[in-house]
């Protein structure tokens, strides 16, 4: 039973502020299915969920009530139980040795920590198909690089703060890199353009 705080976001949206990642996933799931009349989009992020609505169909007051009900009913322990997506990873990242040094463990131990959990896509952002995966081992929760790399290769697997993730394509980036995967994570020509969508379970395995 998360207690969400409703924050104003202009004339066509409200922002729900929550206190934990699991609440974000639960509230996002609760508001996303079934489709609710007047809700245009439900967009999760780290601790907040944006609800865009059409004021011609639903009033702000009615929307607020609907959101509050959905937030109260959201069950953090019920998570979408799809089969996990398994991503083979070559643990050869530019920062792997430095991460192991920071953690004070061997490279093998770091890989074991990264491949152990089932992650969940909490939200996507930064670039199309870039998923923020929650469930990262506390020991691997490290700050971003002081100075972002001008170009991170596509498929790079990294960690930053509480999240791990994969760069779907080459871009600048400040995440610490553990390795890379050959999987194509975003292709606008596919019927499912993004491999990793909010709520998806993810596992990394050594390639």
């Amino acid at each position, binding site marked *: 039973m998360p207690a969400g705080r409703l*924050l*104003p*976001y*202009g*004339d*066509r*949206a409200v*922002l729900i*502020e929550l206190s934990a990642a699991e609440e974000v996933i639960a509230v996002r799931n609760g508001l996303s299915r079934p489709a609710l009349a007047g809700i*245009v*989009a*439900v*967009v*999760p*992020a*780290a*601790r*907040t*969920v*944006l609800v*865009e609505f059409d004021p011609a169909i639903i009033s702000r007051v009615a929307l607020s009530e609907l959101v509050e009900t959905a937030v109260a009913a959201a069950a953090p322990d019920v998570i979408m139980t799809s089969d996990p997506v398994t991503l083979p990873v070559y643990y050869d990242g530019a920062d792997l040795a430095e991460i192991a040094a920071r953690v004070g463990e061997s490279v093998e131990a770091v890989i074991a920590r990264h491949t152990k959990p089932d992650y969940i896509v909490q*939200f*996507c*952002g*930064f*670039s*199309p*198909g*870039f*998923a*923020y995966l929650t469930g990262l081992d506390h020991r691997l929760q490290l700050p971003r690089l002081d100075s972002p790399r001008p170009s991170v290769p596509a498929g790079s697997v990294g960690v930053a703060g509480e999240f791990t993730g994969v760069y779907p394509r080459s871009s600048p980036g400040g995440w610490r890199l553990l390795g890379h995967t050959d999987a194509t994570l*975003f292709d*606008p020509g596919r019927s499912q*353009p*993004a491999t990793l*969508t*909010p709520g998806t379970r993810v596992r990394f395995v050594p390639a």
Partner: protein
Amino acid sequence: MIEILQPGLLATVQDLGRAGYVDIGVGRSGAADLAAHRLANRLVGNQEMAATLEITMGGLSLRLRHAATIACTGAWCPLTGVGAMDWHRALSLPAGTTVRLGSPVVGLRSYLAIRGGVAATPVLGSRSTDTLSGLGPPVLTSGMVLDAGYLIAGDPIDDPAVGLPDPARALSRGLTVLPGPRLDWFTGQAWAQLTGGSWAVQATSNRIGYRLSGPPLERSRSGELPSEPTLPGAIQVPPDGQPIVLGPDAPVTGGYPVIGVIPRFGPDGLDALAQARPGHTLRFRAR
């Protein structure tokens, strides 16, 4: 077919935008001045989903390889090569016509519609060029040839009295601003400054964000905000206190606190801001 002779500073294909993919990190994109884009389509009798050309700061020239009906809206530019020069009118032009847009007299972004719409392969349901992610048709370059599509709804409208949005008037009235989710991250004085002060549009503004400069907006609390979902129109304030209004191609999440939000629709919202040139000084009105 249309042959682009000169694209000017920046010209892109735009439609109503890419809805429904925000939760996989895909931005909304779409015409920066939606009202002007819609009007251009209506004038040539297009369906509302048709794409137009969004032309930044004029300077575009094109040659019609076939007879075509076109219309220009948005920032008013001197138009040459079309005989009876007319803005906000459907113009039926013979094959071989070269159309040139000069520099806009007022405003920044012009829209050129062609009857049938600009043909392009839709990407995730939209023909809009997203200048941040690169999704959609490529930015226009000299020598590029575009086709007209088949997205026709009715006859062209030849009525000079059709409602004309006036970007200059909207900008002089001031833009509407509504409280944002992180207003409480700022001092009370910051909101008064935002809504009472003058803001200069910086030259680094683009479709991703409109960067404003003025007296720095002061925060009442420090610290970091975990990434939050964003919307075009959100006014983000980085630590330097200089606001950035997110544009149609903005990323879908961001970490700077949002002090206020400019409405996407309506005459005093983002459409008007899309017409503010670098150096323009604008004001906000709280609602």
